[in-house]
């Protein structure tokens, strides 16, 4: 299957010799759920920032629809970003708005400015936002204010926001690191089913067993390089555990 997003030889060095990533390549197909694993400092965050165009790599390219995101700026970069939806560790919902309004934030790029400022979203967008909330099992709380929801519920609303963006790629940076085990399972199950509908999902995770349980493929990073990149069935879990174990960091 052809890739929807492809990173080629990404290199990013901070300061004189702190090399965050040193030649990372990665390609993800529609419908695939890829988990990026690695101890802190392995380069996960830098890789994700490069994939979204937030950080410009020193070398390499991020290709989407034949265009290199790393060479875009201004309006062109904004347009390209519509195709990549982000999910954050801290959810990043607008606390005083309702769950539904937060999901509508996923439509900001395509709705006219006056409608955004007056909060008069078109009926079609409102219906889409409701469907997205339904898919993550949060439709009943549509009118609840974001700051009244639990962490797991907030993350599900954030996933609905990403869905409402109708992006080809969803990037989730440590989506379950701040959640309890039950909420984490629900969130990963939701991401799993979204990938099943044809979206490419890339999530960085801390726990190997969660990656093994929910992802199709695992990309293990260490010291800014790809250590392993293989379907879950072919992954040697013990070899992966080692990249954490050798640093004394329990997975």
């Amino acid at each position, binding site marked *: 299957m052809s890739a929807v997003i492809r990173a080629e030889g990404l290199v990013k060095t901070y300061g004189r010799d702190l090399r965050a990533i040193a030649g990372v390549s990665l390609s993800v197909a529609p419908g695939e759920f890829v988990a990026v694993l690695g101890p802190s400092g392995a380069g996960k965050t830098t890789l994700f920032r490069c994939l979204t165009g937030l950080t410009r790599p020193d070398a390499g390219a991020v290709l989407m629809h034949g265009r290199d995101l790393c060479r875009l700026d201004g309006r062109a970069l904004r347009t390209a970003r519509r195709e990549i*939806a982000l999910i*954050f560790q801290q959810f*990043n919902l607008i606390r005083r708005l309702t769950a539904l309004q937060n999901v509508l934030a996923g439509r*900001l790029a395509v709705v006219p*400015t006056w409608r955004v400022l007056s909060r008069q979203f078109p009926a079609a967008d409102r219906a889409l936002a409701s469907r997205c909330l339904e898919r993550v099992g949060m439709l009943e709380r549509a009118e609840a204010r974001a700051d009244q929801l639990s962490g797991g519920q907030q993350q599900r609303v954030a996933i609905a926001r990403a869905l409402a963006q109708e992006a080809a790629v969803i990037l989730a940076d440590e989506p379950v690191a701040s959640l309890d085990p039950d909420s984490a399972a629900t969130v990963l199950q939701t991401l799993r089913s979204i990938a099943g509908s044809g979206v490419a999902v890339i999530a960085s995770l801390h726990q190997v067993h969660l990656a093994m349980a929910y992802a199709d493929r695992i990309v293990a990073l260490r010291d800014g390089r790809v250590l392993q990149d293989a379907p879950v069935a072919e992954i040697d879990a013990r070899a992966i555990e080692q990249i954490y174990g050798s640093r004394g960091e329990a997975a």
Partner: protein
Amino acid sequence: MRRTPAARLRFAAVVLLVAAFYATSWQLAQVSPAKLMTGLPKMASWARKAWPPATDELPVLLRRAAETVAMAAIGTTAAALLALPVCALAARNVTPSMAVYYPVRWFLNALRGIDSFVFALLFVAAVGLGPFAGVLGVALHTWGSTAKLWAEAIENVPPGPLEAAAATGASRVKVLGFALLPDVGPSMVSVVLFWWEFNVRASTVLGVVGAGGIGQELKNSMDLLDFPRLLTIILIILAMVTVIDQLSQSLRRRLE
């Protein structure tokens, strides 16, 4: 607690400096308890002459008080409208560039640094006597103060939600209007109410420089030594300020 000799020396130096500061200030401020002692009986006799307060001019005085409230309201509203576009430029986290941020901050600090009283003095010379000069004075000073407080409210907003909205590919105006405004809106309204309340109090003295309102009547009565009328004016000011304070505070409490 035992002090080292160095600490003791430092303590003595600080005490000496503070004492010198107050001695100099006392001199500069020409504080004279003797003058106060001779002045007090004079004021007591005024107070006796002031009772009962004059009521014959009540309609005129109430109109003047309304003028003061109106000056504060128009001036504060104009200031808020002017502050709206500027505050985003003066907030570190959303300003388009530091090359805009610094000049805007300097400009706002200059407006803030000059009191509305001083502005009103200038405007009385420029546009003539009357409440309009007061409105302009209030508007300029409040513009700087409001924009600065709003910018600070914006700077305290957590960056995550803004980043998330921007990541959808939305333009800057949409991000600010949709993700920022709901967060800072209530505190922005609260700031405006505070300044309205403050400006009603401040506007009572604007009349002294000829910029309209109840202050002008205050000055006239003082110049004519018409104490019953002066007392009426002071009572009107007290009532007006109390009502506005209560109203503004109850509105602000409802915003939280």
